[in-house]
């Protein structure tokens, strides 16, 4: 019924346009709807493209040609890089054609949400842990074990821990694009200039207070009253996750329940309220103002903060974007005498469960090529962290530049001390938004820490419970 109704305009427009189109497209007397729609689409597309499409369809081709759609987020540089990788894959696999669908980070998730509603998600796609639970929980991601069994995906050389970053409840859904850890980038030059001893590689929350206070005093003395030690991370769920883990808990338990305690929230926001009052982190308005800023426009870029929390794989990006700054990498603050916060992180590749079987198989081959072939890793490098396939390291180690070596070292070091974390529960996106919103309200002093923490604790529980039913 729906289809019939909606095809009425298609027919009418094709009929009405037939006269106009006759001049530049071969006369099509075939009145079947799809053919008409196609000629219509050809008329609307640039002539050059439809011409090339014709040429392509006329050239000899193997019968089992598969066309898959591959989507990712990223900047223009990354798009070019990834397109080269898919290009190399196509050269190796002439029976597969890859259509690239690059989108910027914000738009990527809006678009994927809409596509999912029509079972029209890209066959091969980037997936981020922040959103993965929402898609996996709703059955939109294809489990990968069968492709490993069939040999399409070769997991040789992959450490257990790295493979597991993509499994939920024991089922493998995604493969890591690379392994990375949260880290803190420090503007060494600015510390030297101020005469402040910068935090050591292994530092803790107490150090943050003492060094932060020292920095505040030196900044004020230098007349830099709108600069701070570090950005306000009270609204950063990932940073808080470290804090919760240091207390021996997890935000979510392995079976998808709330795993943190009320104290975990209260202590976190109490600590940051103190940091804010001491001038270690910026005031609320400044934090809000810069919350949407891109890298070039960020607090760090403008020397308004001396240290910043970033996934370590972006070290090269930061170093090349700010050639004038002298940067170094340190750990996230740890908690003296408590558990380790670090856990392996990173973005993943996934396959849409709604795709046709032959497309899924082709997507699995693309995935395998991307993360397991020297030809791809030569280009891909450490863009998303240290590749999971350790047996290929020999092929890319010699090519690493100084920044990549530092990333590599950092990941090596932390892989030894880091412990696996649990996977976010369905509803994690909503919990994340709630966390941000309440943290902001506290920072603007519109909510007290106690009330805010209580609200967050209660509402997070409700959200997770709602998403289970």
């Amino acid at each position: 019924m729906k289809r019939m109704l909606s095809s009425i305009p298609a027919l009418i427009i094709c009929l009405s346009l037939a006269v106009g189109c006759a001049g530049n497209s071969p006369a099509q007397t075939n009145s079947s709807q799809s053919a008409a729609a196609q000629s219509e689409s050809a008329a609307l597309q640039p002539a050059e493209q439809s011409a090339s499409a014709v040429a392509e369809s006329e050239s000899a081709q193997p019968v089992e040609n598969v066309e898959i759609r591959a989507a990712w987020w990223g900047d223009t540089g990354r798009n070019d890089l990834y397109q080269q990788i898919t290009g190399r894959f196509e050269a190796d696999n002439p029976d597969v054609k890859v259509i690239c669908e690059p989108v910027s980070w914000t738009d990527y998730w809006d678009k994927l949400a809409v596509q999912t509603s029509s079972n029209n998600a890209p066959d091969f796609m980037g997936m981020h842990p922040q959103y993965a639970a929402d898609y996996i929980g709703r059955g939109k991601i294809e489990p990968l074990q069968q492709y490993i069994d069939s040999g399409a995906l070769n997991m040789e050389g992959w450490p257990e821990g790295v493979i597991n970053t993509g499994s939920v409840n024991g089922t493998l859904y995604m493969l890591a694009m690379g392994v990375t850890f949260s880290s803190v980038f420090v503007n060494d030059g600015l510390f030297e200039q101020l005469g402040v001893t910068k935090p050591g590689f292994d530092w803790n929350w107490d150090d943050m207070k003492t060094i932060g206070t020292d920095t505040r005093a030196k900044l004020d003395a230098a007349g830099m009253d709108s600069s701070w030690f570090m950005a306000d991370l009270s609204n950063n769920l990932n940073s808080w996750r470290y804090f919760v883990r240091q207390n021996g808990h997890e935000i979510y338990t392995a079976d998808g329940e709330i795993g943190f305690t009320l104290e975990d929230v209260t202590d976190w926001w109490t600590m940051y309220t103190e940091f804010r009052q001491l001038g270690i982190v910026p005031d609320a308005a400044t934090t809000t103002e810069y919350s949407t800023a891109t890298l070039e426009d960020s607090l760090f870029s403008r020397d308004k903060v001396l240290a910043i929390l970033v996934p370590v794989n972006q070290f090269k990006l930061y170093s090349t974007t700010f050639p004038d700054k002298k940067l170094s990498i340190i750990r996230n603050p740890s908690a003296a005498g408590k558990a380790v916060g670090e856990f392996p992180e990173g973005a993943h590749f996934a396959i849409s469960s709604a795709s046709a079987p032959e497309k899924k198989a082709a997507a699995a081959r693309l995935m395998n090529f991307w993360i397991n072939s020297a030809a791809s890793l030569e280009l891909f490098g450490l863009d998303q962290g240290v590749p999971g396939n350790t047996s290929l390291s020999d092929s890319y180690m010699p090519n690493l530049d100084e920044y990549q070596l530092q990333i590599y070292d950092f990941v090596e070091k932390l892989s030894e001390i880091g412990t696996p974390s649990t996977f976010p529960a369905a509803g994690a996106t909503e919990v994340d938004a709630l966390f941000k919103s309440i943290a902001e309200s506290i920072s603007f002093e519109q909510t007290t820490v106690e009330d805010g923490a209580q609200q967050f604790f209660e509402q997070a529980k409700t959200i997770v419970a709602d998403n289970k039913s």
Partner: protein
Amino acid sequence: MKRHVFNKPWEAYLFLLPWLVGLLSFTIIPIIMSLYFSFTRYDMANSPLWIGMGNYMTMYKDPRVWKSISVTFRYVLLGIPFQLSFALFLAVILKKQRAGVRIYRAVYYLPSLFGGSVAVALLWRQIFNKEGIINRLLSLLSIEGKNWIASPDTALYTLILLSIWQFGSSMVIFLGGLQQIPQDLYEAGSIDGAGKVRLFFTITLPLLTPMVFFNLIMTIINAFQAFTPSYIISGGTGSPVDSTLFYTLYLYINGFKQFKMGYASAMAWVLLVIIAAVTGVMFGIGKKWVYYDD
């Protein structure tokens, strides 16, 4: 009342045919589907689950819905009068044929051409942030400005200014309407010795009422559904502290960020009722002051 010229009613439906077809295929189906979704729990992946009035009850208890309604009403009530008077004022000034006027019109229209481009977000921050142009000008007068765009009590006003800045579409519609007013009416008025201001209120404004009415209705409908300004400037969050949380933005957050399309649809229908009520009242009042030549 000379409508008897067209006395074959079926002809009207022929003229309406494209619209009717479009209505049935592209508009009614989505509208009915969204109405259905509003009574369901729908996460866009699994089939909708009927929950009756559940979404509407949740809305009633959702403080952020109320917050977003208040933000939206403030945006509508504060933005529209300024935007429209500004547009009308400039349309009247730029109405007359004189040297350079065409360039001026285009120049004043430029901000509207800009739309909701990503660049606007950065531009607006460059103007209204702590170290922005406004505060630099204020510091010349030794006034220390605040962080306009990121403070809960002023952020919404920067978005209202953005909507006023992009007044061009209304201005163009006013300009079109002004050209319809016969010049001889003004000549007659001038002979009677009426001043410019008086001519405006006795001739221009009454004859322009259809366009004023049109602009009023359209800006109301659009302002209630305002989304882009906050989406690009707050990064789609409505921050700081929900002070720019437009109703439609909250609807979008629910639907697209949290996969609660059922709830989002319920919100949409409540908004539809609000807009329809306000517009209905405007149409009712409009009969009294809008001048039609028929």
